[in-house]
């Protein structure tokens, strides 16, 4: 993975030094809060409901063991012993003290991590397929592009004060695991008919109060042209995007208002100007970055130990069946570590758990870890024979929950338990749903079902693209939860449809239960997944189950 060069290290050290003095000046009164706020936000420091919150970028979700240990150190030394992994492959600390933040940032810099551009109207942390470099369905590892974009966008003078934030995701696989179509801009690695590698560029996706599915702006951008092309797109939007209304400022609205054709035309015009200014420096840098992402030398050898454990240990088998995915190298697998134990806070890991995962990655998994937007941790490269030992270690660290892709593998934003923007809680709703279906022992029978919960309209919890989406709102001073069905976060992305009126806090778990019961009644076979059933039978049976009285009235 990418290692900072002298320039990177010096840049980060200088930024941290500047922020340290900014904090000092705020505390001694030389800076007002109005002056300080944009400075702290540029460095990922928010002020939330109960405390400050530091959001640290995990570029394209990739971590090495030392970086994971540094994240553990921050949690143990300056927070309350845990961190919260987010839907943007970041980690958030919920309880830092203002005076400690400069020390936290210095500790991060030691392992090439930072919190720059995790807030503000800038280009945010570039996210990637969490199986990048490992997945069997991948054309090419997308992380070198992500790193190239990270370097280009970090402190880019043209893009520090845009009309609104800008989120980019990348993937090199046929299956979309990075929610590409919900991003302002997305890059998908593709091959043309001549076998050349290039990039499909999507634009105008987004969730929030006006959810939109991203559209293909360019089917094939040549490899050399990617960075100037992205710069052109953002530059066009940065000039035209609305600044009169923050709810209409994102590029999805610009694309919607002007039309894709117009954006394409303006991008081409701008591209003709911008392209010549790059002069090949980006390509030289790209070649250098690529070398950092060379795949490890994968071991050879049989999988007897895996096969024996799979046959003899039902607990291991259950975990292997849900938490493993196909790897491109023979004898290997991708293992997802669930940080969604039933009843626990989705995405939270303790400092001890982070250290345990770092140790496992170092000993067994070629020193690589990933954070997924689904708020889990991934060991991207594992030889199958090591899986029984890994599973035993995960069990000891309380990390062996076998629920990936199941109803308890819930995405939930921090909601009103932490977030100053939230209108309702999300975490306890997730906890109660997971606990309820664990008690019913139904989740393996239910199969693949994604619940995504947001505590406000901004949709950090991706509720629009959940098979079952839950949106927490404040209705006349009471928490109220709207349900959407049929959302899809993959290459067949779709925005869910609202079922009808919302549900009170104590009604939301029973409502989800009725939806699941309806699915089980309606499905044609155990193989038909929730989303397939929903697409086949439509909203009506679910509505009838959710609102029986209203149905009767209509009849």
């Amino acid at each position: 993975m990418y290692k900072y060069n002298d320039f990177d290290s010096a840049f980060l050290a200088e930024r941290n030094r500047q922020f340290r003095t900014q904090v000092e000046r705020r505390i001694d009164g030389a800076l007002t809060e109005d002056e300080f706020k944009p400075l702290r936000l540029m460095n990922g420091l928010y002020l939330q409901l109960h405390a400050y919150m530091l959001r640290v970028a995990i570029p394209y979700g990739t971590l090495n063991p030392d970086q994971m240990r540094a994240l553990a150190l921050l949690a143990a030394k300056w927070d309350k012993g845990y961190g919260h992994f987010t839907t943007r492959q970041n980690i958030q600390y919920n309880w830092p003290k203002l005076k400690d933040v400069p020390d936290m940032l210095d500790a991060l810099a030691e392992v090439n991590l930072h919190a720059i551009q995790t807030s503000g109207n800038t280009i945010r942390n570039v996210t990637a397929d969490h199986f990048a470099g490992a997945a069997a369905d991948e054309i090419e590892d997308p992380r070198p592009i992500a790193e190239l974009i990270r370097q280009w966008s970090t402190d880019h003078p043209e893009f520090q004060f845009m009309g609104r934030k800008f989120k980019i995701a990348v993937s090199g696989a046929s299956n979309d695991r990075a929610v590409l179509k919900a991003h302002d801009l997305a890059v998908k690695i593709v091959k043309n008919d001549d076998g050349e590698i290039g990039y499909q560029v999507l634009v105008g996706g987004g969730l929030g109060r006006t959810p939109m599915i991203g559209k293909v702006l360019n089917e094939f951008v040549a490899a050399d042209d990617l960075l100037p092309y992205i710069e052109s797109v953002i530059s066009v939007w940065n000039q035209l995007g609305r600044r009169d209304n923050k709810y209409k400022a994102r590029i999805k609205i610009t694309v919607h208002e002007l039309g894709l054709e117009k954006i394409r035309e303006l991008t081409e015009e701008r591209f003709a100007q911008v392209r010549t200014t790059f002069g090949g420096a980006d390509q030289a840098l790209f070649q250098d970055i690529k070398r950092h992402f060379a795949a490890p030398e994968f071991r050879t050898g049989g999988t007897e130990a895996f096969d024996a454990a799979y046959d003899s240990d039902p607990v291991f088998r259950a975990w292997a069946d849900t938490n493993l995915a196909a790897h491109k190298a023979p004898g290997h697998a991708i293992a997802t570590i669930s940080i969604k134990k039933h009843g626990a806070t989705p995405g939270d890991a303790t400092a001890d758990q982070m250290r345990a995962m770092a140790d496992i990655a170092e000993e067994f998994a070629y020193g690589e870890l990933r954070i997924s937007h689904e708020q889990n941790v991934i060991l991207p490269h594992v030889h199958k024979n090591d899986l029984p030992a890994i599973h035993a270690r995960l069990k000891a660290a309380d990390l062996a929950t076998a629920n990936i892709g199941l109803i308890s593998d819930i995405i939930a934003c921090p909601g009103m338990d932490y977030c100053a923007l939230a209108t309702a809680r999300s975490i306890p709703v997730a906890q109660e749903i997971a606990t309820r279906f664990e008690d019913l022992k139904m989740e393996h029978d239910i199969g693949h079902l994604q619940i995504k919960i947001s505590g406000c309209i901004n949709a950090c919890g991706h509720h629009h693209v959940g098979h079952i989406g839950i949106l927490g709102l404040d209705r006349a001073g009471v928490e109220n939860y709207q349900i959407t069905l049929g959302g899809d976060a993959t290459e067949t992305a779709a925005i869910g449809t609202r079922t009808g009126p919302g549900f009170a806090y104590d009604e939301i778990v029973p409502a989800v239960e009725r939806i699941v019961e309806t699915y089980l009644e309606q499905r044609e076979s155990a193989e038909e997944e929730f989303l397939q059933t929903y697409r086949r039978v439509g909203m009506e049976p679910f509505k009838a189950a959710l609102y029986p009285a209203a149905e009767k009235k209509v009849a």
Partner: protein
Amino acid sequence: MARAFTPKVVTANDLLEGDVIYLTTAGNWTRDLRDAELITDEAEAQLRLLDAQSQPQIAVGAYLADAKAGEQGPEPTHFREDFRRTGPSNYAHGKQEAKLEATADV
């Protein structure tokens, strides 16, 4: 017709710790809503808010929050303020943690 004024407390976050603070009658800051001043006069509320905003070295983002009189002092009328005076519901952190510690000391 203008809407009737509902009682308020002045609340903010502490600059250094980030935690929720409330303005008292004496003009000090407290971490406990029950010790806050319940302001029943609209003009007075605006003045007290100005007082709070003139203390940027202590208070960040001061605002007036609805509250009502309770047996032990002001109580929140909205669930957001109820969470702010307590802490998150997934862990016993924040103000509820401080309370647990205080109980343990006794």
